[in-house]
Structures are given as structure tokens and as C-alpha cells.
């Protein structure tokens, strides 16, 4: 009897409209505050990054000039430039793309279109997932032990290009596979129905239709490689190179020279790192200027990737 009354009064109390209303108000207030907190944190993250980028531009813009772009590094901060660095970056990226793109696309096509379900496929899949999580400097150590000292490629453009190619290979494979997976199976079935072989289906249908996604993935992977510093320091990039590599084009037959592959190399981020690690402020300004140009390079590549993605998406309607 007493218990019954107690329970009843408790229920009465909890459905008291004032209490309920207060409760609702309180949780709505908390909800608002939480949303505001999220917004503030997001704005803070964006603002901090924006401030950092503006600071870099502010420090470096005054130093960015044509003279800076066409000068070699120098002992004197005011005469130093990035000529050998940006040419090095372009040559290394060329080698990286030449190695990573065919291998990555081949691997992705195999895994997505050909691979039977067996232990070997599982092994390759697990392996790629794990490779994507390996720190980049570990690739550098591997390249140092294997390419530089075991295969005697030296501390050269070839080594640098191959190192970065190995580093971005998992990225290229993952991006290409995603793009291939987006092609509906009906496309493949239609090709088989008119008698195409597997390779014809892949070459003439699946790959062309997924080209937008594939290209986007490649450009993003290469933009990652442009900024990579650590593995190249490990394989022995030189930061002071006051000469250009041998020209790939020559005047005499056969007009192509591969001498440059074995020349010592430097790249933009290495040059920037070198200038940061000097104590003088003038060199820090050079570093900021190199940083601005490096940042513009990667942002331009990303913008290109976004444009490519948008264009291909517009053209294909399933």
C-alpha cells in the first residue's frame, strides 16, 4: 500500500509538466552548446592552418622572383635559388610516374578483374593494405640497403624515382581499384556477350570508363610524392647541387641520353629542409619562398585532380 503510493507520487513527480519542460530545455541548450563547440573547433582548425599558410606566404613571397627560380643554391642567401631543385623534382616525378603508374594499374586490374579467390590473392590484398601503413622513411631505408648498396644504383635520380614509386604504389593500386569497382558489371557482361575476350573487355571498356577515377588517384599520389622528403634524405639526396644533371636529349644520334639517371639529385623539399636547418634568418626566408612554390605545385596538382574528377563524372552517366 505504502509502496504503491510512493511509486505513484514518483511517477506524478516525473510527469510534472514543469519538470519535463525544464528537462527538455536543458537538453536542448546542451545540444546547442555542443553544436556551437563543434563549429568553433572546426573553425579553429581551419583558422590555424590558414594562419600558418598565410605566415608562410608572408615570409616567403618577397623572395619569390624569376631570379630565385633560375639560380643555383649558394652560400649567400640573397643569391641562392631553386633551379637544381625544381628540375630535380620534375625528373624524379617523371621516373616515379613511369614506374608506379603501369605497375599500379596492372596490379589493380589483376586484383579487380582477374584474381581468383585463393590464398595468393588474399596475401597480395593484405600486403597492400599493410604497405599503405608503413612510414615513408622505412621505404627510404629499404631503398638505401637494396637499391643503393645491393643493386649499385648509387645515390642517383634512378634510385630516387624508384623509391618514391614504391612508396606511392599502394596508393595508386587502391585508387585504381576503387575506380574499376565503380564500373557496373553489366558493361563487362555486354562486352563478353559480343565475344570480347577478358583483355579486350578490360582494355576497351572497363579501363576507359574508369579513367577519370584512375587519373585522379594518380595525380593525388604524385602530389604526395612531390612533397616527400624523408625517404629521399635516407637514400642520400644532396642539398647543395650547383649544376644540372646531364641533359636527357642530345644533339648526336640517338638523341637520347640516359646519363642523367645516375647523376646525384636534389628536389624541392630537400632544398627547403636544408634552408630551414640553417641558423640564419635569411636562409629561413629562402625556405619560406621554396615552401610557397612547393605548396603551389602540390595545390595545383590537387586542383587538377579535382577538375579531372569533375569532368569525367559529368561525361559518364550509367
Amino acid at each position, binding site marked *: 500500500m505504502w509502496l504503491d503510493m510512493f511509486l505513484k507520487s514518483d511517477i506524478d513527480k516525473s510527469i510534472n509538466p514543469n519538470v519535463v519542460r525544464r528537462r527538455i530545455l536543458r537538453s536542448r541548450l546542451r545540444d546547442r552548446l555542443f553544436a556551437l*563547440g563543434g563549429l568553433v573547433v572546426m573553425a579553429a582548425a581551419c583558422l590555424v592552418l590558414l594562419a600558418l599558410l598565410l605566415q608562410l606566404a608572408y615570409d616567403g613571397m618577397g623572395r619569390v622572383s624569376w631570379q630565385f627560380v633560375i639560380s643555383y643554391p649558394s652560400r649567400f642567401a640573397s643569391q641562392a635559388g631553386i633551379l637544381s631543385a625544381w628540375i630535380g623534382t620534375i625528373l624524379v616525378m617523371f621516373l616515379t610516374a613511369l614506374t608506379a603508374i603501369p605497375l599500379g594499374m*596492372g596490379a589493380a586490374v589483376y586484383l579487380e578483374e582477374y584474381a581468383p579467390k585463393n590464398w595468393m590473392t588474399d596475401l597480395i590484398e593484405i600486403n597492400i593494405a599493410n604497405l599503405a601503413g608503413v612510414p615513408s622513411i*622505412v621505404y627510404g631505408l629499404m631503398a638505401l640497403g637494396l637499391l643503393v648498396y645491393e643493386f649499385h644504383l648509387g645515390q642517383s635520380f634512378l634510385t630516387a624515382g624508384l623509391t618514391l614509386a614504391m612508396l606511392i604504389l599502394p596508393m595508386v593500386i587502391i585508387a585504381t581499384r576503387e575506380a574499376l569497382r565503380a564500373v557496373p558489371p553489366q558493361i563487362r557482361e555486354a562486352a563478353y556477350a559480343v565475344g570480347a575476350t577478358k583483355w579486350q573487355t578490360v582494355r576497351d571498356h572497363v579501363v576507359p570508363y574508369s579513367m577519370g577515377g584512375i587519373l585522379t588517384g594518380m595525380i593525388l599520389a604524385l602530389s604526395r610524392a612531390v612533397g616527400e622528403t624523408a625517404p629521399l634524405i635516407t637514400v642520400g639526396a644532396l642539398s647543395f647541387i650547383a649544376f644540372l644533371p646531364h641533359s636527357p636529349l642530345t644533339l648526336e644520334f640517338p638523341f637520347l641520353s640516359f646519363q642523367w639517371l645516375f647523376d646525384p639529385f636534389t628536389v624541392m623539399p630537400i632544398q627547403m629542409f636544408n634552408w630551414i636547418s640553417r641558423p640564419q634568418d635569411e636562409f629561413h626566408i629562402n625556405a619560406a619562398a621554396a615552401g610557397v612554390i612547393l605548396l603551389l605545385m602540390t595545390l595545383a596538382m590537387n586542383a587538377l585532380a579535382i577538375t579531372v574528377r569533375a569532368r569525367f563524372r559529368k561525361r559518364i552517366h550509367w
Partner: protein
Amino acid sequence: MNAEAVLKKAEALRLSSRLLTHVKEKAIESLLLFAALTSVAITVGIVGVLVYESIGFFRHISLLEFLTDTQWTPLFSEPHYGILPLVCGTVVTTVVALLVAVPMGSLIAIYLSEYAARSMRETIKPALELLSAVPTVVYGYFALLFVTPALQTLWPDVPGFNMLSAGLVIGIMIVPYVSSVSEDAMRAVPVHLREGAFALGATRMQTALRVVFPSALSGITAAYVLGISRAIGETMVVAIAAGMQPTLTWNPLEPAATMTAYIVQVSLGDLPHGSVGYQTIFATGLTLLLMTLVFNVAGHVLKKRYRQVY
């Protein structure tokens, strides 16, 4: 008779061209398989090189000394080979980075997935992902020449190289990874779970924290693990801003070298190939690889354990 011969010939031609096609298809398939196997070769190369050189290292230095000595001075006249100071530097910078990245990344993810309007999400998310394209050496510049001076105005006796500024910048750097992956995970939670919560009178915050977040825990854990793994392996920021001196300290305001910074430091000099000093970077690299591997495996296990099928 003549017609029959022609037919026979045509049949033979057809057969041989089919055979040719078959051979070509097989050849292409094996070429593609070869491309897929290069990724395995890379792994074999990484593990092979690190283990091979580390064996050379451990022939001179006992594993016990490597794991328990509290000094790391391989290049001094009286060398000590204790990995602890380097591991300590890595742990401190990683913890600082996580203290920044986990709360910020999670809050941003919750906000983007549960509160933000579609148009806002569509602009913020690519912008955040664009930030992951900023080269790490540029972040190193920020840490040394922007964050450290800022810290020095707060505490004047902070040294020019310190783990705090490196950790903070790494934290900011991995916020986009954490928020992007967690947001994907939360968006994958089916709408009817949210609707159920709303129907019971829950606010958006209650729904986000008590329904969506727990349901997406597998993906969110994966995001954190990805972040940890990145912070451990991050090289340029710590090499530039945290200093190169291996010191056994838990104080983030002090300078200390991490494992990655040590590898960079040795690579910048020229140690003779095959010397113990040269082998130390491989032993350090192996330790680094094992640490990231532990986190990657832990991530996969957690992912499986929390995975819920809708």
C-alpha cells in the same frame, strides 16, 4: 574436293588464331599478376633489408642492451646503444599529437556528419583533405618558426627545439585524417538508428554521442589508429623542430630526438656502409616498423570486434 580443302584450311586458321588469342590472354594475365606481385616483393624487400642489417647490428650489441640501456650515443667514442630515449621521444610527440588530433578530429567529424548542412559538408571535407596534401617539410617550417616562437612568448624559457611544438603541429596535421575517416564511419550508420533515437525524444547531441558514435566505433577506432601510425612515422616535423639530441625525458618542453629524426640525422652525415653506426638506423627502422605494425594489427582486431552488421 577443292571446296573441302579450303574449308579445312579455314578451320585450321580459325583454330590457330584462337590458340594465339588464348596464348596472348594468358601472357597478359601473367604480366598483370607480375605487377601485383611487385607489391609483395616490396614488402619482402623492406623486411629483408631491415632484418638483414639488424642481424649485423645485433651481432655487435646484445638485444638486452638495445632494449634496456638508457642512453643512445652510437656516434660517441664511448657508444651506448639503448633505444629507449628514441622510443621515448616518439611516444611523447605522438601523445601530444593525439591529445590535439583525437578530440578535434572527433568533434569535427561529429559536427560534419550530424549537424552540418550538406553544402557545408561538401565544401569543408575536400578542403580538409586538401590539407593532407601539404608537404610535411612545410609543417616542419611552421613548427620551428611559428609555433615555437609562439610558445616562447607564453613560457620564455622554452628551448628553440622542443617536442611540444613538433607534437602540436603533427596533431594539427593528422586532424584531417582522423576527422575524414571518422566522418565516413559515422555517415555509414543507417539513418533509421538516428530516427529511432529522435522518435524517443533524444536531441541531436544525445543521438550523436549515444547512438551514432558507438555504432561507428569500429571505423572511428580505425581513424585513431591511422592517426597514431602516422604520428609515429612522421619524420620531417620532428627532425626540424624537436631537435636531434636523444634524451630520455617525458617532458614535452625539452628537446629530444625521435626514432625517425635519428634516421634522418645519420642519413645527413656520411657513415661508411657496413659500420655499426650505419646498421643502427636499420635497427631503429625495424623498431619503428614493428611499432606501426602493432598499431595496424590492433586496428584490424578492434575493427573486427566492434563491427556491427546492419
